[in-house]
């Protein structure tokens, strides 16, 4: 279900964005775009499949707290 929705949504996005670039033959842009597109698509599929994607924020929190020791105590 979720996966289906994600795919539909991405299809919609592509349908909106891609034709313009193809019409005006901007292949470089198209490559850049499609790389990003694929990245986000993979991300989306992972989220849709309830794979635990590690949140970068968590990593940063750990980094700041444990390595830089920059963190407030909760009062």
């Amino acid at each position: 279900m979720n996966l289906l929705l994600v795919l539909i949504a991405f299809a919609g996005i592509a349908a909106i964005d891609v034709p313009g670039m193809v019409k005006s033959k901007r292949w470089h842009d198209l490559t850049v775009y499609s790389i990003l597109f694929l990245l986000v698509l993979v991300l989306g599929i992972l989220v849709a499949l309830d794979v635990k994607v590690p949140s970068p924020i968590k990593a940063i929190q750990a980094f700041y707290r444990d390595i830089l020791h920059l963190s407030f105590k909760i009062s």
Partner: protein
Amino acid sequence: MTLEKENISSKELAFAVFCFIHGTVLRSGFIISVTRNDSWAMAFTGLLFMLPIVAIYAGLLRKFPGKSLVEIDDIIFGPILGKVISALYLFFFASLAALNTRDLGNFVAVHMMPETPIAAAIAVFLLGCVYTLRKGIENLINLSTLLFIISAGALALNAILVLKEVQPEFLKPLFRLEPQKYVQATVSVTAVPMGEVLAFTMLTPMLGKNGKAAKPLLLGLVLSSVSMAIVLMRDIVTLGPLVSIVSLPAFESIRYVSLGDILTRLESVYGVILIILFLLKVSILLYAFVLGLTQMLSGKRRPLSNPGHEGQASGTAQSLNSKNHPPLILISAALVFFYSLFVFESMMENKNWGATTAPFFSLTFEFLLPAVSLLVACLRKLGRAREVKA
């Protein structure tokens, strides 16, 4: 002339800054758990801390007029290192956008539509932002005066209506806590709501060639610090000790308003205002992200904006969905959507992050990096020769 109006006026920008910050002020009450009944004062100390930061931004923008932060990095640090640092900034913007989106999603899912999955709310919300960007961010900025009037009016209304409930003695005793708590709260205030105006350094090119960025930023910051003080004070005098345990003080304090039995439950007004302000905020953050990304990807090859030229502001503004580079709005929105879905598992984590690490994380981007770039720029004698006075 009519059509050059795509340049935003600095007044509008100031009000945009206000709305940008006011949203977070209404949403988050985490300082209150630190400096309980003195939190209102933190609004002003935070403003003091902001002054040097704003000075840094202003210095950068004055050295490289009409340039956005990302372009400035390219100039200062050269193509490679500049790209890296720009990438860092972009990550910061994306994270902010995701965090705020998630914040609003939580609010909607908890207080407005229980049982609704947060993803749906977030998706609709982001669609609103996408629509805004596709229409051109300058329209949003043009609206900011209106939004300012609305939100300030609502604030005043609420403040007046709760007067019946207030107990001023809740403000006492004044300043009895340990000093480091005040420092902590001030840093939080500086970093989390106020410092996020960093995003505006991506917009200021729209001020046009001779637009001064410092004035609107400062004006907006002053306004919002005043409003912040008012909000916090209202919450304290209405809720008393309750203020530090409720999850959403501003919301709770409005819940007590009841004029007769008619004008009750004003929290709906609060909800509406909050959603609109967050739409503005996330739109601006998303804009900063997309514009930065676009400028990074289509770097020197096709300069989006050539400095000094009048029309370039509008050029930058509409360039998001113009014809000479990949259209990234939708895809970035999708990115932010998924990011915001897995950024936190619970509101508790969110609260913890906001209370402990977020200030330092934000300050790295809001203070450290800009300061360094300004320094480097001065050392390398880059940009316009005129020196910056902080």
